[in-house]
């Protein structure tokens, strides 16, 4: 992702990411008044490892296991992929009906991915509530969607890119703002 002539700004390092995720886990437990009826669902790909981390943290805080799932939204998108349409597997091993589902994604941008994820979840049942947790909110929403839990708000230009690297996928935790 290093581009010639582009200036890169480091927004988060590993420690900052860990603290942000830990804080979100505490906020989820606080708002939900515990872990009862809670489930965490990561939007593939980068939301999935973040959901795993949140699930583990919530379990440490509350001492009870929290179901964690992965959701692939390719089939629910309103834009067809322009090159290679790839469909990942959805893996939600619990009934979503009557649960409070916390959707997790790495970056909240236009809101279209989250819209697709909400539709996909509702196709699986009727959750009691759907909440949204994101590591970064970069603005430029195209739909009336907001996050309930935000790691960090980052003002960006539309032309910029946010590159999130996660240790589960890329071997390190970092967030970089790349000028387009």
């Amino acid at each position, binding site marked *: 992702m290093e581009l010639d002539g582009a200036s890169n700004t480091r927004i988060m390092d590993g420690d900052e990411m860990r603290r942000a995720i830990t804080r979100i886990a505490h906020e989820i437990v606080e708002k939900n008044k515990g872990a009862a009826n809670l489930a965490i669902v990561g939007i593939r790909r980068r939301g999935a490892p973040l959901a795993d981390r949140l699930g583990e943290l919530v379990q440490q805080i509350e001492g009870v296991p929290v179901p964690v799932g992965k959701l692939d939204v390719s089939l629910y*998108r309103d834009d067809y992929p322009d090159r290679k349409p790839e469909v990942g597997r959805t893996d939600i091993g619990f009934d979503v009906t009557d649960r409070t589902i916390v959707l997790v994604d790495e970056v909240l941008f236009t809101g279209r991915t989250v819209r697709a994820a909400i539709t996909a979840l509702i196709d699986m049942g009727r959750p009691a509530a759907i909440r949204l947790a994101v590591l970064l909110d970069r603005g430029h929403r195209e739909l009336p969607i907001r996050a309930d839990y935000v790691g960090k708000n980052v003002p960006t230009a539309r032309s910029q890119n946010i590159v999130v690297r996660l240790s589960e996928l890329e071997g390190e935790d970092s967030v970089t703002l790349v000028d387009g």
Partner: protein
Amino acid sequence: MALRHLLSIEEAETADLRLIMETARSFQDVIGRPVKKVPALRGRTVVTLFYEASTRTRTSFELAAKYLSADAVNIAVAQSSVTKGESLKDTVRTLEAVTADCVVMRHSSSGAPHLAAGMLGIPVINAGDGRHEHPTQALLDAVTIWDAWAPGLGKRVGVDAPDFTGLRVAVVGDVAHSRVARSNAWLLTRLGAEVRFVGPATLMPADASLLPATVHSDLRSGIDGAHVVMVLRLQTERQEAGLLPTAREYSRIWGVNRSSLAAAHPDALVMHPGPMNRGVEIAPEVADGLAGHSSAIETQVRNGVAVRMACLYLLMGSAAGEVL
């Protein structure tokens, strides 16, 4: 996905075929849900154009289109203007003019879908052409095998890429008339399997030496150690006179039953593309999985819908992408 049409396995890129199989895996999950429909192809139209009788393939494609929220329209040739003498060319052009987004076609002449694809700006899927190919059947068979066997030839445990190295597949019966056998031979060998055609010499294709399979004229030695025994339908409606004496004799010598299966691998998977002639090419107890081997025949039908969803999604999705 480099593929614009799915006309044959032989001409398709292996990477695209793998992508279809992997995508089918995701659709297996979708059709296992209480709500089977996903909105991926909402507002688009799939036309099934069948110049040859077929219930299961056509239904399978229609269900696949509907589960993707596309509209499926069937042109049954017996009721169409084809019987009034319209040419294939004109029929196919009309489909495009009425804004179909994909054509699924079966024809008794080999190469007819190629002809249609050359005239159309929309994806064409070959649902069986003459004695040539039936690519989606081979893909669903490969997915079924992939689910059943692991590369190490133990039972599979969630391995990610299809690799059939070391797998021995015996295709038994009427290979000469079988487009399923051809498509399977091309696909399974590309994935690493050894394919054997097993049957009487009169039912072996004249060009067998051009196909990636070995020919065996003895049932027991042909299926010796096979991990997959794929039984073909005896195509009685295509049977020219003189290729075999009687169905009864065929059944006695070439029928896959408990005793002939003893030569296969103990965990062999028995498959059949359907529709079956029970008691002719396959014994009823073998078809029902009651002869000590597992029968994948119902799984094949279920995987057929998932594979066709993957084909429609990948071909129609990428076609839209070029416009965007």
